[in-house]
């Protein structure tokens, strides 16, 4: 195992002031356990302070650092240099912003625009089940939670949306649908009809072609396609049913 690698990073740049897009090549020598966010920081410190990129938690928990590396959407804070070299079989990496919303600058996309699709499905409990008479918090048993616990791990990194064969034109996208499905499977949620209407609308699950790319790229290893298929199967009831 090599200690250091000579890497070539071809980064897609965009300057909003001049509206110019270009690819910029950086050569750097990096240790094998550096992550890609560390490489971006290294570029900022040693070569080009102007390169813009996003991150927050840097522990795979917030979803803000997602980019496409050699075409694969993933979290830049999770990918180690040695793993990238092994996975892609190269030391040259082309890095692009996710294609889920307009680019603000370089690798930074307008995440608020991307989030609009998630907002559409109201990713919170719309109408909560009544609390117990003693006023205790509603508790969910592990058995109740088991069928959908994996889906609750979504961090809205939009990697799945970026990989999806259905693109992003008028389609809610896998993570937004997943957010709604989580609430449909949540015993605390009483408002199912409104959710099903959105899910079964022209922008919803009927636009999914079961290409499984979402499940393949999800950094949280959520089988997104499985949850979407549950909706297609009619597991959560129909939009016209009585409350």
């Amino acid at each position, binding site marked *: 195992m090599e200690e250091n690698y000579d890497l070539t990073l071809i980064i897609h740049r965009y300057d909003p002031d001049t509206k110019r897009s270009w690819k910029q090549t950086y050569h750097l020598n990096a240790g094998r356990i550096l992550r890609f966010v560390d490489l971006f920081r290294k570029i900022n410190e040693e070569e080009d302070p102007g390169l813009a990129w996003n991150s927050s938690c840097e522990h795979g928990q917030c979803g803000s650092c997602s980019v496409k590396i*050699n*075409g*694969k*959407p993933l979290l830049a804070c999770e990918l180690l240099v040695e793993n990238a070299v092994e*996975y*892609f079989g190269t030391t040259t990496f082309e890095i692009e912003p996710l294609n889920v919303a307009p680019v603000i600058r370089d690798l930074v996309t307008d995440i608020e625009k991307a989030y609009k699709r998630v907002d559409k499905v109201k990713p919170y409990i719309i109408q909560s089940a009544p609390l117990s008479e003693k006023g205790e918090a509603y508790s969910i048993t592990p058995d109740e939670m088991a069928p959908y616990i994996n889906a609750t791990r979504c961090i809205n990194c939009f990697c799945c949306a970026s*990989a999806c*064969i*259905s*693109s992003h*034109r*008028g*389609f809610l996208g896998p993570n937004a649908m997943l957010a709604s499905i989580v609430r449909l499977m949540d015993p605390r949620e009483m408002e199912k009809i409104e959710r*099903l209407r959105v*899910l*079964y609308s*022209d922008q919803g*699950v*009927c*636009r999914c*072609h*079961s*290409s*499984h*790319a979402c*499940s*393949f*790229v999800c950094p949280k290893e959520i089988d997104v396609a*499985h949850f979407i*298929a549950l909706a*297609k*199967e*009619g597991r959560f*009831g*129909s*939009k*016209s049913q009585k409350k």
Partner: protein
Amino acid sequence: MAITDSVIKRLEMWILPRLAQTPVVSIYAGTRGWPFVIAWIHRFFGILLVIYVLFHIYTLSFLETPALFDHKMKFFRFFLFVLLEWLLAIPVIFHALNGSRLVLYESFGFRKDGLMIRRLLGISVAYVFFLGLWMLLGNQTVTPLFFWLTVSIIAVIPVYLVTGKIWKTGMPVGWKLQRITGAFLLISIPAHLLFMHLHPSIGHESDVVIQRMQNTFIRFVDMALVVSVLYHGGYGLLAIAKDYLESKPLQTACAAIISLVMTVFAWIGIRLILTV
């Protein structure tokens, strides 16, 4: 199935690494997974089949003038066309079986997708091989009524199962009809291909075709084929178009154009079936 699966697994171990090195496939297999590549092949073959079906209905429309039909059909006896007709079995069986795999995954909860993909490839290879054999033999006789009665009875099974499973879900009606027509075509189109190659005259000689179409049941089956295939193809095209057209008016315009083309071809097909 265990032996077949192990043979397919071995083949797969030999083929996949090689396939994964081919230019376009290598990018998508590694970044989106094999089912994504298969989804693209499904799309591509679907578009190809829609084009073929429209061409097929167009050539059949020459049946109105039998002499002209026989003249045109002479071209299809050349080796190259026979080869192309055989190769047509590849998109047909792949699209049919992959479509059924999707229905099994989406509506029947079959989650062993890798296993299903292996089986679909195995059955596809076997079908294409047997169709080739059929074509080489080329002198089988069976009455059309017997063949199509049997096929129809078999085709009713997936239609019944799929309809029962999906009809009460909240999915849009258009989507449901796409699946139901798909279930019918899953059996009837590969069977149609087999039937057409039982004997060269079945599809190439106007008097044989016209005589077959005098039977009411055959007419009914042919009409069901035309309507199902055009609806299925039209909905598929629209689903692809929607992935690229963001604006609602553009989507509506596209839906109108596709509906118009499909209706015109359905009209040509049905008129032909009822009048020859």
